[in-house]
């Protein structure tokens, strides 16, 4: 039973990771931008929802607003931070440091306006009940599974049907060539940021509801997303999602065998092991020489 219980909490955690990781993976896969401010998107979405919820706004409106702010932030990053840097041929690390600076600023802004502590949205959805003998499950688990499934289905369908997925892959390989094909690489970049940023919104709301968020949470979100993106294989959306799920489950199950303080490090050991023994990840293509 302990195993099942841990599996359930692993899936719950894993879904949050999967959603954030998929967003990061999509952006990184398509634009080769190491979007370390992804964690900031998460915080912005989470706090938007929380603050509106506190004001008594009906949850669908709050959710919509969270989508709006998250997407607006992501697109603003693409247009006003990453684009100028890339236009002047800034290196990988220039982008990295710039994005990190934004994360720091966003974190302190949120602290300034909304306080530094952790905030939670209380709902009865998170109360666990004994569903099976000795197995305690909260309704939020079912809700998040359904939401994640629907969200992923929508994204995958959109990318496939509209050829957008193909465009994003091409963008990742050579944006200049994309222009030679007569496609607008700027629009595709924005598209990647829109979808990628939108993907974290459900994760942010679930976190606000089930764990609670604080201005400093963004960091960890970013790290896990990054790890999952690599484990899943760069450029693979479903890889990142699966890896996120896997990391969540591993992190939970592993405490049956190791001391609890190691559980977080285990995710990164998994990452390390993947890089050493299967560097192209679960679904990725071989690393190019």
């Amino acid at each position, binding site marked *: 039973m302990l195993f099942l219980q841990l599996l359930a*909490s692993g899936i719950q955690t894993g879904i949050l990771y999967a959603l954030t990781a998929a967003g990061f993976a999509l952006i990184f896969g398509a634009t080769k931008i190491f979007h370390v401010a992804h964690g900031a998107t998460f915080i912005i979405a989470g706090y938007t929802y929380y603050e509106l919820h506190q004001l008594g706004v009906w949850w669908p409106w709050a959710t919509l607003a969270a989508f709006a702010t998250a997407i607006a932030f992501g697109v603003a990053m693409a247009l006003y931070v990453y684009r100028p840097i890339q236009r002047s041929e800034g290196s990988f690390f220039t982008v990295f440091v710039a994005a990190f600076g934004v994360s720091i600023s966003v974190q*302190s802004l949120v602290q300034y306006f909304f306080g*530094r502590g952790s905030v939670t949205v209380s709902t009865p959805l998170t*109360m666990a009940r004994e569903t099976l003998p000795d197995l305690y499950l*909260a309704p939020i688990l079912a809700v998040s599974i359904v939401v994640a499934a629907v969200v992923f289905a929508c994204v995958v369908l959109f990318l496939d049907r509209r050829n957008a997925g193909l465009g994003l892959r091409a963008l990742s390989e050579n944006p200049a060539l994309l222009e030679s094909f007569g496609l607008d690489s700027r629009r595709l970049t924005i598209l990647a940021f829109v979808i990628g940023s939108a993907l974290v919104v459900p994760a942010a709301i679930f976190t606000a509801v089930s*764990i609670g968020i604080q201005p400093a949470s963004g960091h960890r979100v970013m790290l896990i997303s990054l790890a999952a993106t690599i484990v899943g294989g760069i450029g693979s959306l479903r890889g990142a999602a699966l890896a996120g799920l896997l990391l969540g489950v591993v992190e939970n199950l592993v405490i049956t065998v190791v001391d609890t303080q190691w559980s977080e490090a285990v995710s990164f050991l998994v990452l390390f092991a993947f890089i050493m023994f299967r560097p192209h990840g679960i679904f990725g293509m071989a690393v190019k020489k």
Partner: protein
Amino acid sequence: QSYTLGTLFPMSGPNAEAGAIYSNAVDLALKHLEDDKWLKGKISVKPTDSLGTPQGGAVGMSRLVNVEKVPYALVGFTGVSKAAAPIGDRAKVLMVNGGAVGPDLASLSRYFWNIIPLANQEVEFLIPWLGEQKIKRIATIYVDDPLGQGILSELKKGLPGVGGELVSSYSVTPDLQQFSPIIARLRNDNPEVIYIASPNITQISHIIKQVRDGGLNTQLITYGVANFPSISKLPESDGLIFTSQAADWASSEPTMKRFVDDWRKAYGTEPTTYGLNYYNGALLYGYLLRGLEQAGKPATGANLLEELERVGKYSLAGGEARFRDSTVTTAMQINRIKNGVTEKIK
């Protein structure tokens, strides 16, 4: 004549909530000293941000010592205190900690004093009560730092004496936010009480919420940190028991009453022991300075220390405080949170 008081609190980062409360307490105390015309001179605060990290602490302390040239500094947080102590010690600055409770803070330096009872004292006080309540099975979630280790070793040492047993202990990293797997295991361990020992306020509130969400109704116990609103105001904290230094908010003792009333008025929140300690820490400075003024001595760290060691006891808010061996000894109490209000149960 004017005096300076240095503060070295985390003003940003995950523990900034604490820094804000500490600063408010200091401001309040200085206002009271001023209103009372307690001193000939005026005390001005020199705030520095410790970022809550050792390096921040070292840089901040160095700034307080070398730029602001304060003779007296209020500090907080274990890592910060440990990094700041040698710097203050070298420059002979009297440092007073009102927030960190790691047991190893007792012996940092002659110039480093704690105006807060350290965690081991709190656990010592709790254990007999557990015996009285016939509580046998105790589990703990702790952060493997001096605080957590101190609490853990006190529990291990004390529990057998009252017929109790530490059934399990889970060590976590200070920034862990997800406790569902630990909660799943705790459910299997079936303890009567779970003791939470973390230096990180946010983390404690995460643990409390997630334990309750996990459908676990075990009694939760923690130390004085539960005085922070983000813990005590959490809906899930209902029923939480915690030890703290004795602080009777309804007391009619004038210093205490003035502190409580003015705190509520100025900040619109309930006062906490942390606020109280830093309020007292600033008051103590006033008292020491007054002693020096009367003796006609300059306000240097060495003189302040001498004065503190000479007098050794002051009547601060909450009663008389005795200072010996770098630490204050105060009465302790056990509290329970009920409907968002903290009530004393012992």
